[in-house]
């Protein structure tokens, strides 16, 4: 009776008795306690991210957690246009920061300004893509994922799963690292792999394009998406097209982990963005505190890590809070 009354009252008030913020558990974040008491230093991170990218959000939360522990003032800025990204680096140099974390998606545009950073005596760590250019620009270390290696890992995993014909969905046409992922997968995959360009800012278009591709070629037995948000959409397209293909994806988010658990997806490739942010800040702190250098001149790889249904129980709450 009491239950009925409560739910009636909730309904009257327009409340939902399931889901929503009301069902959230209090999560424990890192860096809640006290950090080190080394002198306060400032580190700037400048990425090539566009607006509203889940991936860079996770990189940032890693960096912020490290910054809290290491008593670091962390400044983040980003621009997807190479020239403007270089300007942002320049303004960080002008502010005389104690360390720089930079992405090298467009290495040619960054070379000049990173030379200036070196002249100003600011240590630089490069993250994410562009490992092969890191030593050229005089970076202390490179922390990231090699897209080609990650792609190859996917190709091998597809072989292991006995797939014959795969589709690689590129959600941003002409993006070098996305092309590298597809190319890497194609290289190590024994079957046949085709690509499809979709408009990543228009979800219904992604869905209908994947649907159309699967309808036109019913032999496709696996769909590989290159970003977490597109995996769920592709799974939907697969159902609509009546295809039996397995959907696999790069990167993780809460939806992908849930899908792995429900076996909507086969596997996901994680490059652990949190680690890229965290390690970059921590390595710069170590460099200033203890003159340490990470990686011995070789890139430090944060991925690929193949995540399947078995790993879900461990990861679920971390993706929910946005650190995996």
């Amino acid at each position, binding site marked *: 009776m009491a239950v009925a009354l409560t739910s009636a009252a909730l309904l009257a008030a*327009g409340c939902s008795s399931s889901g*929503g913020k009301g069902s959230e558990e209090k999560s424990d974040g890192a860096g809640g306690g006290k950090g080190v008491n080394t002198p306060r230093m400032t580190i700037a991170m400048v990425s090539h991210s566009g607006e*509203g990218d889940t991936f860079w959000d996770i990189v940032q939360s890693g960096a912020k957690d490290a910054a809290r522990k290491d008593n670091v003032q962390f400044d983040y800025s980003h621009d997807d246009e190479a020239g403007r990204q270089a300007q942002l680096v320049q303004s960080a140099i002008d502010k005389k920061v104690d360390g720089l974390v930079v992405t090298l998606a467009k290495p040619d545009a960054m070379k000049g300004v990173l030379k200036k950073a070196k002249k100003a005596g600011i240590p630089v760590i490069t993250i994410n893509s562009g490992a092969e250019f890191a030593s050229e620009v005089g970076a202390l270390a490179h922390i990231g994922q090699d897209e080609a290696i990650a792609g190859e890992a996917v190709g091998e995993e597809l072989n292991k799963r006995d797939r014959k014909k795969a589709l690689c969905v590129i959600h941003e046409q002409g993006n070098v690292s996305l092309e590298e992922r597809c190319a890497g997968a194609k290289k190590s995959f024994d079957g046949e792999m*085709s690509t499809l360009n979709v408009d990543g800012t228009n*979800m219904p278009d992604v869905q209908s*394009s994947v649907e159309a591709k699967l*309808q036109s070629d019913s032999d496709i037995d696996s769909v590989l998406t290159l970003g977490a948000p597109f995996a769920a959409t592709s799974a939907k397209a697969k159902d609509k097209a009546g295809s039996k293909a397995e959907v696999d994806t790069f990167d993780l988010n809460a939806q992908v982990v849930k899908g792995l658990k429900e076996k909507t997806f086969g596997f996901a490739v994680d490059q652990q963005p949190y680690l890229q942010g965290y390690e970059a800040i921590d390595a710069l702190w170590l460099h200033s505190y203890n003159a340490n250098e990470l990686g011995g001149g070789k890139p430090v790889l944060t991925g690929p890590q193949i995540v399947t249904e078995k790993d879900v129980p461990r990861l679920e709450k971390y993706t929910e809070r*946005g650190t995996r």
Partner: protein
Amino acid sequence: MTATPTPTPAGTPESDKPDEPAPDEIARTADSADTARKIDERLVQRSLLSRLLGRPELGAVVGAIAVFVFFSFAADSFLRASSLSTVLYASSTLGIMAVPVALLMIGGEFDLSTGVMVTTSSLVSSMFSYQMTANVWVGIGVSLLVTLGIGFFNGYMLVRTRLPSFIITLGTFLMLTGLNLGLTKLISGTVSTKGIADMEGFESARALFASEFTVGSAQIQVTVVWWLALVAVATWLLLRTRAGNWIFAVGGGQHTARAVGVPVARTKIGLYLGVALGAWISGQHLLFNYDVVQSGEGVGNELIYIAAAVIGGCLLTGGYGSAVGAAVGALIFGMTSKGIVYAQWEPDWFKFFLGAMLLVATLLNAWIRKRAEANR
């Protein structure tokens, strides 16, 4: 009917084919056409054909048929029921916005904020429901109010400041892009919203905005119904009501319209509210189809909506166009973008093919309209 009988050489047996008109018959037809011309032209009963030729959507319909026939031959899998329903789905998600955008363009204004307004609408709905732990229908209602509010803001700024709508809605576009991202991150902590599929009301809302039903052997998405309903309402509004006359009048020339007593400000604000309503429907579809909304979505779609309206026969200068035309424009866009995939053309060239096909369809459209007007 200006076709002349083919001159047949004398003496051949073909000359007395029964289906060729005799010379005196031709003379009679020409006579009756002459008498018709003598009557006042406004009183002439135009034939069905010539009335059809005068419609703004005619060119688009011919273009759509051309694209359809083309892909029927170019792509093996294009004509299957399941493929056609995919094409219809792609067209409907564009068409729901293209129809109100066409009305706005007939009224002589632009809206560049439509693409991100769709995202705003779904974000508001999702985050309100989640944060308040409310029944999702409450979120849907709040989202409707907020989205209409944005539409009203666009319209009100336009009539008060008299700045070009291009500038005002460009401002709204940028502000909404920033707000979508900023507020989502502030409230949800990440750049996408949290899932609301387990909340009360989700199933019924999904039934309304993102379900599908079977017709024959094809699965039809409910967005197709929304699309057709919007076309019907918009066509009725344009052709059968006083508001429709106002829309054409303000698009043709707002000073003249004001001089003859058309409420220009109200009409324009109303048109922006119509666009907001379309954005709300599209936004709720996004939310209930995908459960989670990415805050960076929608940028660039505003141009596709405008393109669909223009392909469908709307003039960029206002005062001319139709809702049916915009819907057909969306269909052309949907058929072309999916048809290229069905035809398995090299994916790197996708955008090029898309652009070229659209240009050809639009040129065909313009050419047919010119012919139709010349023949009137």
